[in-house]
């Protein structure tokens, strides 16, 4: 049987944010777009997120941060991913992230940053384009 390849995606909340409505909405949108979404829940350490990505063998890691800690946590995550050889995973950032931080984040390997008012469709299109799966 030829099973269709599925996009597998981790939606993660690194750090100390205490609410995740946005992440859940995104997760739901990904699911409705036919993806398999692994949701980690709140308060995740970079190590936990990277291990999850590794064990679940995902195509995409979507990180959401509202607390302002993105300049510390995102680099930790991308560095850990490289160390573990997870070089082919698409990493996305979202949440409350000031425009001036975006160039630096892209430099460390975050493929794109999506602000709070991004339509979910835009993100889904981006993912499909960059993973080339259904």
């Amino acid at each position, binding site marked *: 049987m030829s099973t269709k390849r*599925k996009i597998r995606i981790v939606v993660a909340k690194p750090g100390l944010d205490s609410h995740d409505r946005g992440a859940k909405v995104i997760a739901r949108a990904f699911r409705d777009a036919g993806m*398999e*979404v692994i949701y980690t829940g709140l308060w995740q350490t970079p190590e936990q997120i990277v291990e*999850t990505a590794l*064990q679940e063998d995902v195509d995409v890691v979507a990180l959401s941060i509202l607390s302002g800690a993105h300049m510390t946590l995102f680099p930790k995550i991308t560095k850990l991913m490289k160390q573990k050889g997870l070089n082919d995973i698409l990493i996305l950032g979202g949440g409350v992230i000031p425009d001036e931080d975006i160039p630096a984040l892209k430099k460390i390997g975050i493929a794109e940053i999506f602000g709070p008012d991004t339509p979910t469709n835009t993100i889904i299109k981006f993912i499909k384009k960059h993973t080339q799966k259904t």
Partner: protein
Amino acid sequence: MKQLVNGVLKGNRRSIAKTITLIENNPTEAQKAISKLYLHTGKAHIIGITGPTGSGKSTLIKRLVEELRRKRKRVGIIAVDPSSPFTGGAFLGDRIRMQKLSTDKEVFIRSMATRNSPGGLARATKDAVKVLDASGKDVVIVETVGAGQSEVDIIKIAHTVVVVLAPGLGDDIQAIKAGMMEIGDIFVVNKADRENADEAVIDIETMLNMSSEKEKWKPPVIKTTATKDEGTTELLNHINQHMKYLKKEPIDTQRRQKAETELVEAIKQKTTDSIIDELRRKGELEKLVEKILAKETDPYSAADTLLEERLKGFKTHR
């Protein structure tokens, strides 16, 4: 492929993850790996944990794994969740309660979507269990959501099936449903700090006592409160006792039955796949679909027509 297999045998987490993905996406290709890994399986105790949504399975599993880790057991977990029949997407949220275990090098957690395979349990789950077994895990836990009927598939995989219920989930009704009562080797009433926990236990015990078969193993019914870590040790004791019981059983009946089921399933799968692939290639399937839509024939007669030539020598069921 060879690298992947060797990686799994060494317990390399990346190789384990990649092999499971291969099983999910390309069963034919994955089979080569499974054939090699199969020879290294049979060491792990495979525990199926099933029960309705909201009974607290994930939290209970987390406690169980913590207890197993204290005993230095290596653990694999496969958490199965349903795919949407409409979009094919899935929300795999069982890890949430187990995230703290993620960074333990001797624990491997994988979420799997059913991808709409009948029976609720992904066809791939069985092979994923083999991968974890071959990778050196002492215990492999398979978590499935079940309202009862469709989850009986788990019995084909697990040595020990734990059915988790909770008070206030309509257990009296659940308990009457056939499937669930018959597959359980151990019954757990979780969230036992709630009202009516004792009633739930009595309900289940009554139902179990009514079963006509005289089995040597009498399924225990135990209470746990996973959030407070109460009852975990007792549960693990019962699980171990069940394994001891299985080991005392004449190996023949148990294993023969499992091996036979597995062979029958493999034959079914291979026959269906090869026939349907061929019909698709030749366009015969589509033609008959059109006829069914036009009400010129019905699916059963159409299947007879399709199979007549191919199964010459075999009698098709009617």
